[in-house]
């Protein structure tokens, strides 16, 4: 099974090819959700803006000047959608009491450490290819099997294993320290 490039899938999606667009969504959904989760505190909001971002991306597909870098373009859309949603929420309501950290529960030092780790992980993930990023997140974060991954992102089980191997190697090199071991 040969893997179609993002550029090919974008070109076919521009012509209204639903299968191509679905494959594009499947490959980028997980990493896009990570970007959305960083932007939104509520997991449901993160899923909503992920879905909204894909629909907007399809509507503006002609504006994607470099289809080979589709993910960077898509992630910018996610950030914009998240920004819009946060603005709307800010206007609509004040922060509810149950979302405020109770006294003694928050740990600024730990939060700062987590935030730094998140940034490092995200930066390293951005260096991977689309397939490496998808496979790594599905396997190491979500616990999908290689069979499940292969069916969902359109590759063979063997290729899924290879992508995982390459992704972990690159991430180890980029992250260096043992924070993520």
């Amino acid at each position, binding site marked *: 099974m040969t893997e179609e490039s993002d550029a090919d899938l974008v070109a076919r999606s521009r012509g*209204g*090819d639903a299968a191509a667009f679905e494959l594009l969504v499947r490959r980028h959904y997980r990493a896009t959700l990570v970007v959305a989760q960083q932007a939104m505190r509520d997991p449901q909001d993160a899923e909503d803006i992920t879905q909204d971002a894909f629909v907007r991306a399809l509507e503006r597909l002609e504006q994607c000047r470099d289809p080979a870098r589709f993910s960077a373009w898509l992630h910018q859309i996610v950030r914009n959608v998240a920004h819009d949603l946060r603005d709307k929420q800010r206007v609509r309501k004040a922060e509810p009491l149950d979302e405020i950290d109770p006294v003694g529960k928050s740990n600024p030092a730990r939060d700062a450490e987590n935030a730094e780790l998140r940034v490092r992980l995200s930066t390293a993930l951005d260096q991977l290819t689309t397939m490496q990023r998808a496979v790594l997140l599905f396997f190491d*974060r979500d616990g999908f099997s290689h069979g499940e991954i292969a069916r969902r992102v359109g590759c063979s089980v063997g290729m899924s294993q290879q992508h995982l191997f390459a992704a972990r190697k690159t991430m180890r090199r980029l992250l260096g320290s043992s924070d993520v071991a």
Partner: protein
Amino acid sequence: MSPDEPTPDPIDMSALGAPLDVLRFDAGVAAIMRASTRELQRRRAKPTLSLIVVQWRRPVLSFSGLAAAAALALFVVPQRSSSSTSLSVASAPASTLSDSASVAEWLGVPSAYASVVEGVSPAVAGSTP
């Protein structure tokens, strides 16, 4: 990926947020595809004549505007030059007349026709010292 090389250890990515299960992933993709149906259909639709007209409306209007402006300019400039030439014929010295003759030459009008248009015969124009 060589067979001898050990597989690197898993990466701890818990800092990136909650994990996603297979069902939620599939539901998310399905929701996106449902929401995209109309846009995909629109993209698949063959362009009809009205759609082509709508799509080309801006360039056609822009081109028409430019063409109209150019036509207006071509219409107004000769009018002005001919009126100024007529005035110059009535009261101007010979040097101005030679200027008006050169305008006619510049416009590609033979001098004989140009003088007819100006309402001045070549003999009259030439008789002024």
